[in-house]
């Protein structure tokens, strides 16, 4: 059947492109595989060029498939083809165009495609540069691509779902198959739901979502490359040689993945109300862990490069980093973290396939590794105690331990599936839950690791391969001495008391000073050679910034009043509109509320006391001057839920971070149209009753204006009453009012009369008793409560050190990459 207005051709073409990328990867793996398993001599035989050309052509087909898939998905998103399930689920008409890219990778299919694309691009760089390593690396890469492309196939083999296609039409979804509307050729015109999609999650509608995923996935893709070289090294028994071409890639991966992870932190800090930049959330953890092992692998690769022996640990770490990326993919995409993470993907029913991906590469690569382990060259002698390689090895082990601990804690949901009461092997009686206080748990275990790492970072530049001359290692004492003084000063200045924190502050300062010293005195501040020193110095700054801003994070919005014995303190401050409230060291006032697009913005003005010698007493209020205005907002989204977004004032040495934790978000009309539950009262002339705890209602007079009786029965047939009341305010103001009451036969007319400017209305319910007691019912408008919001505000001191450190670390790592590429280019010329 031909469906009117449906882009079924493009849907089919898109699926063909996915199939092409899958088939291309398969053929490439086949041809590269043949070459990879031949000896170098055999490769030089006649069919060499034919085989290599065939393999490259196949990889080219694969690339065309990937590019075609991207092009069609973008076209569909750009043109709002809502008959595509992916387009309908992830975009909408009212979305700004710049977020089309975000829609592209919001879903699982799109993010797989992103990963696939980076692998493909890096694959071409390998083809151009890897020379004799091309066969092995591209063989392994094609296998990876084969698995990733299969995630997008969206076909059924019997009952097994293989992949999830981004091009599936809504009428083709399993739940819609056979429904009557799918038989209509003009269903797109008939069903209004197809005119607009669901839109992007408001949490993701910001520029971070445009830049963070591509960076992170480029980082993930870069982790794959050292793995490819390590595997090739195993296949071809070039156990130590592989580190040379792999080194620049490893440091590239360290730079990009590190940037991606920290960018995620910056996003959380800038745009989400998690209350910090790092929450030890399972999703954050699982992208940090491969970075840790990659850093360990990168450092050991330098050891192997110099020693030309004992590569086992290095190969293992390179493999492990890639496996941990796969594991991270499994954790975030299988839905297994559902209970424990705020930002995991939903289950797409691909768990079997994800497990197959993880299982194949884990068993495959570790199997090959252990098979080859006995053939690997062993170090003849132990490393000297004063050698750089010995301490680098200790550092790598520490990083590995740190990664193992984070992985273990993050994997608690997986452990439940394996050994929990309903698991495969029921060992545990009850389900394990993640640590109740994640920050405390991870900090207490990770700070000791960070202590060791930062000490090693400080001394490593002053160590030499094989053995370090004594006079060189002594030169580190200069930094060590300065560190002691600085640590004491900073700890005293910030009033740090926890021993662990002071320890980390000291070691991180040491790492910073030692590397700065090394860069300035030994390398004379040269940029080209300073990559290592800069990266280390940057990482030390990240540690210092994270430590101080976390340890000294201060909630200034603390509500000091005692509320309940179970709630000793409260971090929410109540801000009635236009009222100026003290929030040390500021005074704050909620000035206005605006609607900007989907956002409800709250303007909160901060004041400082402009009276240098003032004490913090009430008298200060007369000496306030505006310091700054913040605009925390709530993104309104009826379907996906409202999102509180913070607003931050940056100073060079601290940030004031605020977000609105509660606000009455109803529209103005709704707020003013509502009346509260009525209140009934009885009174006599001359009586007074309290109304809404605010007013005194005084019964003035009750006048019978007209009355008529049935002459035969003596019953009342007609009655007109007028009740005069006065409402007295606390301030002495008086508001007189006359309430009518008409009786005609059995019909009562007693209109409600409103004091418009007071937001109160009253109805006269008639005379209740013979002594003249009469009843009234009164309502108060809901908006009669002065509007207020609750806000949280925190000071993050010295958080800029963290961002500065991140940048230095990224720049330093990239300088190291550049130095290595530069060297290898020059070596080629010789």
């Amino acid at each position: 059947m031909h469906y009117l207005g449906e882009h079924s051709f493009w849907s089919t073409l898109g699926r063909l492109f996915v199939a092409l990328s899958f088939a291309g990867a398969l053929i490439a793996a086949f041809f590269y595989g043949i070459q990879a398993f031949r000896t170098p001599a055999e490769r030089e035989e006649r069919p060499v060029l034919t085989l290599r050309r065939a393999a490259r052509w196949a990889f080219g087909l694969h690339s065309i498939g990937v590019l075609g898939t991207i092009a069609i998905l973008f076209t569909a998103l750009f043109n709002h083809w809502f008959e595509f399930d992916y387009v309908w689920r992830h975009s909408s008409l009212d979305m700004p165009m710049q977020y089309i890219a975000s829609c592209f990778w919001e879903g699982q299919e799109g993010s797989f495609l992103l990963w696939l694309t980076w692998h493909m691009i890096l694959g071409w760089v390998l083809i151009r540069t890897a020379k004799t390593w091309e066969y092995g690396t591209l063989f392994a890469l094609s296998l990876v691509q084969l698995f990733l492309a299969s995630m997008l196939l969206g076909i059924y083999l019997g009952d097994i779902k293989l992949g999830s296609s981004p091009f599936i039409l809504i009428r083709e979804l399993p739940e819609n198959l056979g429904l009557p509307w799918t038989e209509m050729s003009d269903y797109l015109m008939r069903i209004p739901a197809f005119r607009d999609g669901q839109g992007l999650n408001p949490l993701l509608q910001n520029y971070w979502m445009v830049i963070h995923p591509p960076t992170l996935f480029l980082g993930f893709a870069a982790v794959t490359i050292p793995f490819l070289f390590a595997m090739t090294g195993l296949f071809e028994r070039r156990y130590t040689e592989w580190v040379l071409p792999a080194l620049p890639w490893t440091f590239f991966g360290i730079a990009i993945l590190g940037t991606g992870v920290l960018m995620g932190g910056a996003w959380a800090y800038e745009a989400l109300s998690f209350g910090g930049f790092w929450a030890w959330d399972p999703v954050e953890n699982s992208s940090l862990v491969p970075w840790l092992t990659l850093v360990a692998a990168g450092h050991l690769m330098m050891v192997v490069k110099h020693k030309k022996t004992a590569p086992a640990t290095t190969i293992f770490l390179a493999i492990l980093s890639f496996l941990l990326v796969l594991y991270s993919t499994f954790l975030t995409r299988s839905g297994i973290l559902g209970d424990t993470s705020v930002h995991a993907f939903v289950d797409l029913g691909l768990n079997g396939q994800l497990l197959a991906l993880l299982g194949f590469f884990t068993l495959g690569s570790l199997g090959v590794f252990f098979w080859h382990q006995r053939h690997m060259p062993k170090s003849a002698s132990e490393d000297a105690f004063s050698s750089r390689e010995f301490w680098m090895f200790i550092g790598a082990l520490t990083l590995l331990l740190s990664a193992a601990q984070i992985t273990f804690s993050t994997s608690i949901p997986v452990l439940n599936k394996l050994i929990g009461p309903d698991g495969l092997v029921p060992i545990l009686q009850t389900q394990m839950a993640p640590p109740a206080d994640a920050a405390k748990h991870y900090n207490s275990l990770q700070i000791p690791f960070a202590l060791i790492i930062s000490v090693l970072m400080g001394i490593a530049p002053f160590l030499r391969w094989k053995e370090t001359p004594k006079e060189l290692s002594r030169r580190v004492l200069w930094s060590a001495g300065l560190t002691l003084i600085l640590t004491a000063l900073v700890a005293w200045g910030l009033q740090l008391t926890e021993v662990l924190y002071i320890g980390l502050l000291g070691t991180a300062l040491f790492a910073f000073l030692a590397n700065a010293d090394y860069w300035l005195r030994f390398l004379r501040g040269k940029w080209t050679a300073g990559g290592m020193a800069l990266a280390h110095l940057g990482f030390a700054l990240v540690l210092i910034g994270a430590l101080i801003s976390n340890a000294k994070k201060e909630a200034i919005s603390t509500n000091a009043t005692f509320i309940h014995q179970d709630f000793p303190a409260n971090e929410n401050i109540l801000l009635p509109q236009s009222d100026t409230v003290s929030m040390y060291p500021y005074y704050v006032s909620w000035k206005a509320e605006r609607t900007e697009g989907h956002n409800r913005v709250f303007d909160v003005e901060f004041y400082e006391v402009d009276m240098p010698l003032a004490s913090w007493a009430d008298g200060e209020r007369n000496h306030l001057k505006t310091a700054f205005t913040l605009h925390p907002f709530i993104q309104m989204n009826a379907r996906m839920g409202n999102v509180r977004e913070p607003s931050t004032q940056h100073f060079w040495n601290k940030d004031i971070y605020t977000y609105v934790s509660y606000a009455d978000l109803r529209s103005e009309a709704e707020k003013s149209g509502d009346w509260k539950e009525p209140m009934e009262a009885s009174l006599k002339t001359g009586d007074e009753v309290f109304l809404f705890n605010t007013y005194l209602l005084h019964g003035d007079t009750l006048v019978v204006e007209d009355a008529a009786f049935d002459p035969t029965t003596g019953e009342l047939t007609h009655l007109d009453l007028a009740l005069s009341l006065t409402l007295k305010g606390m301030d002495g103001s008086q508001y007189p009012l006359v309430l009518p009451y008409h009786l005609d036969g059995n019909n009562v007319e007693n209109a409600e009369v409103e004091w418009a400017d007071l937001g109160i209305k009253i109805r006269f319910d008639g005379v209740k008793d013979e002594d003249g007691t009469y009843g009234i019912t009164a309502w108060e408008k809901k908006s009669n409560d002065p509007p207020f919001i609750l806000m949280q505000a925190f000071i993050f001191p010295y958080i800029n050190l963290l961002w500065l450190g991140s940048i230095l670390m990224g720049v330093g790592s990239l300088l190291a990459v550049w130095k290595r590429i530069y060297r290898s280019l020059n070596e080629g010329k010789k």
Partner: protein
Amino acid sequence: MKRSSIILLAVVALLIGALLVTLQDASIYATFDMAKKQQPETVTVVATLDLDSPMDFDPKASILTFQAIDKDGQRSVVRYNQPKPTDFERSEEITLTGHYTDSAFIATEILMKCPSKYTDGEGINPDAIYTDNQPST
């Protein structure tokens, strides 16, 4: 003993130590009954929000009081010292971390599982279909 063996032993010891500490830090998934027995220990309870009982948010004190039903069907009053999470009523499941006191379960953290958090599970709604002659919704 060789230095490498000493290092290996130290690494294994540290690893076991770290894992034991992790296991000790791990809280347990409990029911309200278990939480009551173990008060004041902090536990994690997976429950559903009881929409039929009154829910009260006192904005001035910023205390949310509601009732939740755990997996055994046990109902409990829960107090939460934070503003009501957005879309609280739409949650399918709530994960409460906190402890029991004599009066109620005091939640320090609430994680919600919403059907709509990332993708809407409901899919397209084809109920509204225009017939041949006139639009009807």
